[in-house]
């Protein structure tokens, strides 16, 4: 990893989408055990995926991981904390007026 350069990795991944009444979830798993670090960007290749209602869809795809530069990773580690409030659920969007 360079101080200022980004690297691109292509990794196989499995996407699982559940669009069932019992569970609405979507997860991406990297098949080769790749891990993401702060500041990295991930993009699953291919067309949009959506399971029909009541079904679970699992697809093998390729994901592109755009690795953050060393500097960006450091920056994200230092500043990411400021966004922590997003974890709180207030059940309303940020829009002031609708």
């Amino acid at each position: 990893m360079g101080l200022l350069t980004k690297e691109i990795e292509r990794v196989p991944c499995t996407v699982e989408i559940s669009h069932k009444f019992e569970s609405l979830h979507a997860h991406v798993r990297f098949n080769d055990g790749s891990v993401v670090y702060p500041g990295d960007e991930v993009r699953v290749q291919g067309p949009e995926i959506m399971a029909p209602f009541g079904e679970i869809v699992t697809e093998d795809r390729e994901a592109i991981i755009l690795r953050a530069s060393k500097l960006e990773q450091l920056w994200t580690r230092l500043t990411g904390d400021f966004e922590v409030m997003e974890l709180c659920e207030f059940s309303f969007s940020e829009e002031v007026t609708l």
Partner: protein
Amino acid sequence: MNAPVKHSADAATVEEGLAIQEEQARFDDDFATETAMSNTLLTPRFYTTDFDELDAIDVSPVREDWDKLIAQMVSDPNKGHFKKNEDWDHVDWDGMDPALKKEFIDFLISSCTAEFSGCVLYKEMKRRGNNDDIVQLFQLMARDEARHAGFINDALREAGLRVNLGFLTQSKKYTYFRPKFIYYATYLSEKIGYARYITIFRHLEANPEHRFHPIFKWFEEWCNDEFSHGEAFALLMKTDPRLTSGKNVFWIKFFLTAVYATMYVRDHQRPAFHKALGVDPDWYAHEVFTKTSELTKQIFPITLNIDHPRWQRTLEALHRANVQIARAKTRGGLGGKLSQMAGSARAAWCFASLYTIPAKKHRVPASTRLEPVY
């Protein structure tokens, strides 16, 4: 997606032509159902944290309480709860006041996104962790969040809204939170979530004429899940006394202030929703803060002094500053920019004013575990 349908003019025989027409009709029907529903793009965020630090947690000091809580979560008392039954009354979406409908749908979508984001975060922690206790906890919490999201999704479908998980194939950046910030924020989020849901549930129990949608009937068991999740985070924090002492108390105060203030401001942006529920947002905020403060005494050595004369006054000023910022943004131009800056400065001042109200100190009990009693 459906494959392109052959046109009947291309048919070689009458039978084939009819078959194509039939196929086309079926396709049009599916297409109409799907497109009639508006798309609602869920936009969860993606996080990483220090997974080694998370793995290093040792729950031995709270083992007894921990095992009991996990056993209760494994037994899954709410498994059968999130089902629509005869209590799910018909919802008159067309007859609903448009302002209320807008705010209520915003409420449903935001709730669904929040549950969904929680699920993504917990699942990631589950997957990256190597500590069996932690991995099991996050797996169980991810299960509950996904179940809640599914339930809200169903209510959205009834309203003609289809969630879109298009974010999966869009580029997403992973941000970073220190584990302790995740504990403070999610603990508070789960506990305040419990207080919010139970306050609405009890209010509607006493005033059923204000229950304009059946989903509120499910809030009681729903918030018990939030309650258990909060308990788990409280126990996690209990394993390391440094998390709730020394300079971390300043962080705790920061999170309490930020969470309460954000809730106040967001709720005041949804007047039609609160009016329909028959709830005064100021009363509601005070009620929720009181309950949350009482609960957080289980682990935090301080609570905010919400009865201080500066508290309510400053919250109201913060709300006005927030409205000013939003109006200035819409206005645009140099005047808008200046007004926006002035609004932001006022908001920052309000926050500082709230933060500096002296907190109430108290002793944290030796035993952490609580039961939902509200």
